[in-house]
Structures are given as C-alpha cells and as structure tokens.
C-alpha cells in the first residue's frame, strides 16, 4: 500500500515570509442550497463548524467550512476522515438538491506566515490585503498570478498567517510563485 504524499512533499522557503507545504488536508466540496436547514445540520455534523457568512470561513478545532460561492462550500476535515465524512454528508443530504465530493487529493495546501505574508499574497493577487480590508476569518477566492486559488487569514497569533488552497496540478507552480514573491530582497513595505 502506497502512502499519500502532497504535490510539493513538505517544501519550505523562508524570505520576507515563510512559505510551506501545509501537508495533507481533507477537503470536501459541497454544493447545494446554503440556506437549507438540512444542509446546515449536515455541515455542522461533518465539520463542527457553522455555515459561514458570505466570503467568510468558520473554523473550529479540527474542521472548517468556507464560503466558495452562493451555492458552494469547502469543508475542511482531517485527511483520514474525508472519505467517511463525504459518505455521511451524502447520506444526510439524501433528497436535497446537493452534492458532496471528496477533493482532498485534488488540491494543494500552503501556509504563508510571517511579517511579510500580506505582501507576498498582495504581489500575486488582485485583492486588497490591507489589515482593514482583510481580517482574520475573511475568505477569498481569486487569482494568484496565472492560476485560481482561495485563501484566508487564520485567527490569532502575533504574526499574520494565511492558508492557501489551489489545484494540485498547479501545486509546484504555486510553491515557486509564493517562494519568488517571498524572496528576502523583495520587500516592498506597503503593509
């Protein structure tokens, strides 16, 4: 039996911010009517998190639910539980117009932390990342250089810490892109 690995296999780079492969993460794409009570209960049961507000992520111990679009959520669960949780969701949502799919192995997952974290993302994404505009708990799906990605700012901690999700097929590109943007001599000093 082969053991699962991530696309960048634990890669790490430190410059004006630390960019690292955040390891294996269970991810479930859930589409359906986000105002439905059945769906809300199913999300709560699977992740422990509430259905988030528009452009927000609700994080709890060991799970999270992120707002992807008016009819789509990204659920984060422990990697080993993803298959079982997807089946549980499908069972709980029987009769609803909804779909749950396990996408854990179709995504790459990164952490960008440190004093320059906002700047690293701001260089590659058309998003206002100032601390007034982008606060912990905010979630944003956008473009990073040439590829689509979603990122959010984690709660707490002295330094900013972002999590970023992209397609696994562009995981290698994403790491090099982030590492390039975090080059030690590339500080702009905007934020």
């Amino acid at each position: 039996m082969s053991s699962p690995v991530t696309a960048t296999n634990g890669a790490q780079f430190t410059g004006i911010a630390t960019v690292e492969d955040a390891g294996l993460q269970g991810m479930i794409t859930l589409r359906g009517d986000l105002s439905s009570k059945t769906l809300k209960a199913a999300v709560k049961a699977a992740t422990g998190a509430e259905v988030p507000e528009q452009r927000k992520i609700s994080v709890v111990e060991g799970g999270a639910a992120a707002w992807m679009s008016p009819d789509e959520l990204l659920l984060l669960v422990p990697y080993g539980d993803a298959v079982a949780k997807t089946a549980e969701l499908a069972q709980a949502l029987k009769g609803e117009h909804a779909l749950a799919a396990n996408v854990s192995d179709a995504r790459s997952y990164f952490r960008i932390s440190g004093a320059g974290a906002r700047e690293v993302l701001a260089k590659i994404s058309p998003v206002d990342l100032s601390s007034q505009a982008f606060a912990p708990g905010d979630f944003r799906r956008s473009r990073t250089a040439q590829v689509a990605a979603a990122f959010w700012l984690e709660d707490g901690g002295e330094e900013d810490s972002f999590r970023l999700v992209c397609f696994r097929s562009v995981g290698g590109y994403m790491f090099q892109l982030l590492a390039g943007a975090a080059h030690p001599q590339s500080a702009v000093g905007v934020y």
Partner: protein
Amino acid sequence: MLILECPYCGVKAEETELAAGGEAHLKRFGPGSDEDQFHDYLFMRENPKGVHFERWRHANGCGKWFHAARCTTTLEVFGTYSAQTYEPPQEIKDKITAKRPGWSWREFSDGAK
C-alpha cells in the same frame, strides 16, 4: 482597468479576475425560426458608442455569470445585476437615465418618448 462588482459574492473584481461573455440579453432563435431571425441571432451584435450591456463571468472567483451595464466611451460602470433576468432591472435603467438622458440600446431605452 475595468472594475465590476460581482452581484453574487459582492467582490469588487478587476478585469483579470473576470471573463468577458459578449453581449447581454440575446434572445435565442433556434429550431422553428426562419433564416433571417437565426442569422440575426447568430451574427448581429451591437457596437455602440455609449451605453452597453454585457455578460461577464466571475471566472477566478465564484464562477457565476452576471450582467454589467457600462459606457464604452468612458468605461464608466452603471451597475451590475443578476444573470437570471430578461431585461435590465429598473434600478439600473434609472441609474443610466440619470447620467445619459435619452439613451437607448436595442429594445431598451430611458422610457421617455
């Protein structure tokens, strides 16, 4: 740089996050229509100097289609609205009328005779 607010996720998205989808409010003429109608549906497009309605997709975002009303000469955006409609909502029409009295585009206009 064109900045449009996506009506589905409320993001002020800039052009690189969006994909253009051509003219808005096209009425499809398919099987059963005559050749002239099909020809016009397929090939005839507005190319106005001024008020224009377009379809856009928030491709690097929520992925939803929406409509935008804007001015082709000044790049001013009058507003964006849901794609689930056959014509621009009154609120958008009013905004255009306030800035471009006497405007008209295909069968839509400011309503004044």
